[in-house]
């Protein structure tokens, strides 16, 4: 069985706790294979974190530099990172409970929908939001993901193709007017292909910079933690994952803020 499918099933044994996200979710939607690391959205509760750590401990995973897998930091938007070996593979597992650009209502819907899925994986619309990163290649993925969306409203909100948008605008002119305030790019549809392509390029650059600014808040807030990490990692060597977790939490409490300035407070 594929390692990310296997892990998702182990994390969700007995109860839905995690949803496979990002690059591996793109694979699951049969669009592209572009990341070798796994990324999951976790339910924000203690039992979930305990269970996920226990699954990782069985696989002799170790903490990579990151936030502790602890609700106080995860509520502040931090991510936790682990690594282990599985046969020939170096497996990396990345976790968040508050993925960027998914507001609480979207997260609630994601959990409700995942409850009904045979395999819990982030849906196409939410993936479009998650892929608004600082990486150019993710906008190509959004371009194809948008073609999988099943309604014109969402296609107009996420399409990266000037040609697709122009065709949609011919069919749904009222929808374009309605959605223009949510997506100003749509105001350029009437101005022709060149204007629309320029607007799409500008939108992509704006989204890239917005994500860079968000990430920079975390980099700045983690400076002291980063300085301390080599010593903490050395201290964790030889400890079980749970003992390492307890030690890392203890150290992080005095070094790593629960939420960076300017980000959501727990």
């Amino acid at each position, binding site marked *: *069985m*594929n*390692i990310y*499918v296997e892990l998702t099933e182990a994390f969700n044994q007995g109860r839905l706790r995690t949803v496979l*996200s*990002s*690059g591996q979710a793109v*694979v699951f939607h*049969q*669009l*592209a*294979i572009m*990341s*070798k*690391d796994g*990324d999951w959205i976790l339910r924000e509760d203690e039992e979930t974190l305990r269970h996920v750590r226990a699954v990782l401990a069985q696989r002799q995973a170790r903490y*990579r*530099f*990151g*936030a502790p897998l602890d609700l106080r930091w995860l509520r502040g*938007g*931090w*991510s*936790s*990172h682990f690594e282990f070996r599985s046969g*020939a*593979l*170096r497996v*990396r597992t*990345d*976790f*968040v409970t508050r993925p960027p650009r998914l507001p609480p209502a979207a997260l609630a819907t994601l959990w409700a929908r995942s409850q009904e899925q045979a395999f819990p994986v982030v849906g196409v619309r939410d993936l479009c939001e998650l892929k608004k*990163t*600082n990486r150019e290649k993710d906008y*190509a*993925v959004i*371009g*194809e993901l948008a073609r999988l969306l099943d309604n014109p409203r969402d296609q107009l909100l996420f399409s*990266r*193709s*000037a*040609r*697709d948008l122009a065709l949609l605008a011919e069919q749904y002119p009222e929808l374009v007017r309605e959605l223009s305030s949510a997506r100003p790019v749509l105001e350029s549809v009437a101005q022709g292909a060149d204007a629309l392509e320029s607007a799409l390029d500008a939108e992509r650059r704006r989204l890239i910079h917005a994500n*860079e600014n968000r*990430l*920079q808040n*975390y*980099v700045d807030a*983690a400076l002291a933690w*980063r*300085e301390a*990490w*080599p010593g903490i*990692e*050395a201290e964790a060597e030889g400890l079980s994952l749970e003992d390492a977790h307890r030690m890392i939490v203890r150290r992080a409490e005095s070094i790593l803020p629960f939420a960076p300035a300017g980000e959501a407070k727990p």
Partner: protein
Amino acid sequence: MTHPRDEFLSEEDLDLRHVSREDLFAYWDQWLEQAQATNERDRRSYSHGVFVLMQEPERNEDRRRVAERPSE
């Protein structure tokens, strides 16, 4: 007359849509195995989460060990 279409991904990627789940998983596993070739190069980087702008900090002895390793 066919109109040109904006293309975002390669033909190889788009072909994934037409494979069975079983073939997808087999290709996915094979891809992951091949991707291990870059483990050394990306050992300090992040694919997801809030640390993607930074490199994982290393202990001095790890730095020395990597420097002494033959290149890939």
